[in-house]
């Protein structure tokens, strides 16, 4: 798969159809995969593909506007949903970007892999996809581990945009399906079963830990505003100190802005240095949007987002 | 400066003099009488003005140290804090933290002729030095002042300009970018106006302050007229926050504008990468 990727990118760069390609590159240590911007032929070798390519690269396409020339990008099924939404929200034009879809069969969650293997990621030399298992090389020996044990949370409920014409595909794109053993919203239902006081205590504790580094905002494809209301001086929605009331406003307003836009790529949770359980907040957003308005973000290109449309017969508990 | 470098002193606004549509001079005196005497500063230094509940902003001290008792700040309403200050009235309280930063090189320029080139709201920092020089007239040579603004209404310190005009030992030249009915003086930008006047560079130090584009052109003109970089001194306007060289915001190269400046000579600035881009 990796060589086919290299050929395609080399061709695209050679023909000049794209100025640069956004893909995954090897970091300084084998277990570290980082976003990699390839502009010239000799850099193509750095591009990799495998179960450790976790980032959602779609957000980087937004930078294409201020760099001249077209961009190519490698996207998994879940990342493509961001491309669909960016098209729907007029942030990119389809012909502005060359989209290479990759037949992703589930990505590894480094934290759970460490727990399952009992070995820090530093010692992992590589992870290969082997059907319903992963083959992990540690030092010299190789260990296999069942996929469903170490998958990223979102991969258990893998979803693709229904009809998206990729410019190129690596392997046959088919949604990865695996028996997750529990409903997609189990972690939300677990919290919903708690009492209001318990839920308040849970979230106040989490919001208090937030250090407001804005990583969840900067990594999120949907946060592309030129000047975010949180950075605005007048009116001042938010004060910069990470006080509890300010953190709560930050996260709740972001959740409202993600209503009907969150595509469950869970990058916000992955990059959060403080391990805030953000996917438990945004899974709730998706659950409510699905239940209330029967809508899922990033699937249909021409579907009107729920909070900017209405049905005359919407449910109305407010009579 | 109090030992807690972040704790301002309380001062009361004793007078507000509107200068232009969006600029006014605020005269403040410290509440603590003992402080009124002990507070000293040098021309070119600035202070952080606090409008409690809104924030702080760095404003140059426009009064001269030779005047006892009160400080004068020329504040333009451009940000949230300065706009809020413009909503205060005589009798309201402000926090003053300072004096901060370095000052105009008052010793080095003793005995020298002085050329002041100000643009728009660039005059207040120069004014502090001008008054200091005029109050110690004998220690300094000739004084030439070139000042320009967008329009006659945008000229600050209109009364003082008249005063300096009548003063024999001061040559004052005032221009406006665009004149109107009430203006009969020269019209044009400061840099070409400077070239017209073409003050000789011998034994002279030039001080300039104003919008970055004006400073750039003024410096080019002065260099062509033979002024050495060391003899061209300016005060930089950068985003500042703490004012005491800690918060890492106003750095140009390894200098903090709030601590090592804001007054720099141009040979200093030439040596700092990126200083002149800002």
């Amino acid at each position, binding site marked *: 798969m990796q060589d086919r990727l290299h050929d395609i990118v080399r061709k695209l760069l050679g023909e000049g159809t794209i100025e640069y390609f956004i893909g995954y590159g090897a970091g300084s240590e084998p277990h570290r995969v980082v976003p990699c911007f390839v502009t010239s032929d000799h850099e193509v070798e750095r591009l990799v593909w495998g179960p450790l390519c976790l980032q959602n690269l779609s957000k980087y396409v937004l930078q294409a506007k201020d760099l001249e020339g077209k961009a190519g990008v490698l996207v998994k099924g879940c990342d493509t949903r961001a491309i669909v939404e960016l098209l729907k929200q007029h942030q990119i034009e389809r012909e502005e970007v060359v989209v290479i879809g990759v037949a992703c069969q589930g990505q590894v969650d480094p934290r759970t892999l460490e727990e399952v293997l009992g070995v820090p990621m530093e010692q992992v030399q590589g992870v290969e996809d082997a059907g319903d298992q992963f083959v992990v090389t540690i030092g010299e020996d190789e260990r296999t581990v069942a996929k469903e044990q170490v998958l990223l949370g979102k991969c258990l409920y893998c979803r693709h945009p229904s009809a998206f014409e990729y410019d190129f595909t690596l392997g046959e794109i088919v949604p990865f399906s695996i028996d997750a053993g529990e409903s997609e919203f189990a972690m939300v239902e677990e919290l919903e079963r708690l009492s209001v006081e318990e839920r308040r205590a849970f979230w106040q504790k989490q919001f208090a830990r937030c250090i407001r580094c804005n990583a969840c905002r900067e990594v999120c494809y949907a946060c*592309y505003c030129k*000047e975010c209301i949180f950075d605005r001086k007048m*009116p001042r929605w938010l004060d910069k100190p990470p006080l509890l009331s300010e953190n709560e406003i930050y996260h709740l307003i972001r959740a409202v802005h993600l209503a009907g836009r969150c595509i469950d790529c869970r990058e916000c949770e992955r990059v959060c240095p403080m391990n805030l359980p953000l996917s438990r907040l945004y899974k709730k957003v998706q659950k409510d949007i699905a239940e209330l308005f029967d809508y899922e973000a990033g699937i249909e290109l021409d579907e009107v987002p729920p*909070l900017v449309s209405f049905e005359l017969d919407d449910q109305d508990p407010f009579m | 400066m109090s030992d807690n470098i972040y704790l301002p002193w309380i001062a009361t606004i004793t007078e507000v003099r509107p200068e232009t549509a969006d600029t006014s001079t605020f005269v403040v005196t410290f509440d603590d009488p003992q402080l009124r005497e002990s507070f000293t500063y040098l021309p070119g230094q600035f202070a952080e003005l606090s409008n409690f509940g809104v924030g702080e902003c760095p404003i140059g001290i426009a009064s001269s140290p030779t005047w006892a008792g009160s400080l004068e700040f020329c504040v333009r309403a451009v940000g949230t804090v300065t706009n809020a200050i413009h*909503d205060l009235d005589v009798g309201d309280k402000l926090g003053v933290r300072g004096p901060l930063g370095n000052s105009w090189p008052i010793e080095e320029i003793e005995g020298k002729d002085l050329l002041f080139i100000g643009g728009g709201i660039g005059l207040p920092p120069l004014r502090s030095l001008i008054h200091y020089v005029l109050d110690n007239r004998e220690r300094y040579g000739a004084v030439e002042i070139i000042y320009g603004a967008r329009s006659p209404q945008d000229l600050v310190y209109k009364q003082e300009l008249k005063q300096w005009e009548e003063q024999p030992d001061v040559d004052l030249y005032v221009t406006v970018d665009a004149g109107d009915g009430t203006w009969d003086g020269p019209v044009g930008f400061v840099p070409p106006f400077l070239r017209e006047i073409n003050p000789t560079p011998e034994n002279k130090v030039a001080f300039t302050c104003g919008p970055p584009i004006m400073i750039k052109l003024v410096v080019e003109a002065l260099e062509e007229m033979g002024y050495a970089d060391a003899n061209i001194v300016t005060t930089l306007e950068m985003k500042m926050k703490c004012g005491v060289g800690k918060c890492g915001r106003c750095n140009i190269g390894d200098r903090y504008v709030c601590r090592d400046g804001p007054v720099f000579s141009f040979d200093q600035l030439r040596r700092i990468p990126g200083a002149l881009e800002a």
Partner: protein
Amino acid sequence: MPKTRVGVFVCHCGNNIGGVVRVPEVVEDARHLPNVVCVEDNLYTCSEEGLSSIKEQIAEQNLSRVVVASCTPRTHEPLFKEACEEAGLNRYLFEFVNIREHCSWVHRHDPARATEKAKELVRMGVAKARYLEPQEEFESEVFPAALVVGGGVAGMTAALSLANQGIQVYVVEREEKLGGLVRELRTLFPTEQDTGELLSPLMEQVRGHPQITVYLGSEVENVEGFIGDFQVTVGSDGQNSELQVGTVIVATGAQELRPSGMYGYSTLPNVVTQLEFEESFKSGADLPPNVVMINCVGARVPERTYCGRFCCSTAIKNAIWLKEQDPDAKVSVLHRDVMAYGVDIEDSYRGAMELGVRFLRYDIQNPPQVLGAKRAEAVKVQHQLMGKEVILPADLVVLTTPLVPREDSERLSKMLKVPLGTEGFFLEAHLKLRPIEFSTDGIYVCGSARYPSSIPESVSQAYAAAAKAGIPIRDGSVRVEAITVFCDERTCSACGNCVEVCPFGAVELEEGKFGRIASVSVAQCKGCGCCVAACPSGAMQQRGFDDRQLLSMIGALAEGMVSGGGR
């Protein structure tokens, strides 16, 4: 002196307010608010003396904001705004605080907490007033011409009514001739008057009227613009012409439902609709002895819930006509209910029965069946009253169907950006209060385009629509209250939310200085603020209700409640 200088005027309103709220305390509390330079209380602020004291203070204190705490803005706001304007203060630098209807009148038994509430309401009012900005009301002049879409009875009546007021009118009719649906009728209910007698004079006047230009065989291709300046493209067989009009009247009427697949229609030759009966039989074809009419075909059913309103009277008219031609003819009308509302329909219903027309009631659960392989021979129906099946011989079966919306109303509604109701007819602004206009200003509707309307109803609606459509043209200009929205092009990220939610299509995405941004057509914007709430980056703001103002009100209310309280 400070830039923002707020004057607060607290009203006693006799003892309506003063009797419960301790006004002096409210005045004292307001004195310490930021930027408040003068506070006054008067017995009746809305009195001459009260208004002049406001004007004096504006002059004396050079006030840049005025806050009046008294009754409801819905009554005296214009009065106070005039006073401010006369004193040279922009009328939008005024804020109204309601401490009567919302405070003193409803907390009569708790003066202490009513006073506390009044203080907080004044604090919120001052907090908002500090961020008010002067506004100019947008005024656009109205082009003195009107467009009428549809040349039926409704369209022609409206066109004539406008033209007779001296207004230039353009009528666009799709067919080659004026007259619309009524032209397909031979005789009119109830007088059996010949249709021509009604239509031809109308058509003559319209064709002959100097102020009316008629476009036949033409359709509206595109409509741009807003009240006072609609640019309309009319396409007639290939070539387009551009019109500029101030107001538009939609009179496109409706069409008869062709109930294919029901009761053998379109498969059995002798099963026709009322209109088809009218055309073929009334022009002298020999009349069949047995005629069975079936009413409510395709009406008052799950997929089309409304009642056609006057299809019953059409069936009665034709039944009477048949009996008059041949008294021995056996005419029966199978119905679910006879909608014989009003005077003349009830009389003709009685008359039909006297002439021997049989009215049989059937139940929707088991509707009548048309028997016959190649031709309809009989109609079997469960007779409700007698409780048994009846077979009626039938040489001709006439189906009474309701009027249904024209197929292309969707296209016209998109062009005019006006909504369609659930049944597909044009949806008026308000069922009771604004029945013949859309919520979008300058566009009106009359006749069956809105719902099946008989001729008298269409005509009266046409007069109403014409009267309404004439007003802006008479005024010559339209003033839009300055509560419209505007987009800060520096921070707009062109996500398009505002375009989706605007009920009036007043927002479009266009190329701006900083790339693509949303741009608002001030004349079309009604100032609901829905787009402002949908805008994540806060680029969209509403004059007089922007985020700064509303957030500072919330801040004033929450001040001191929690550490790090309000702004």
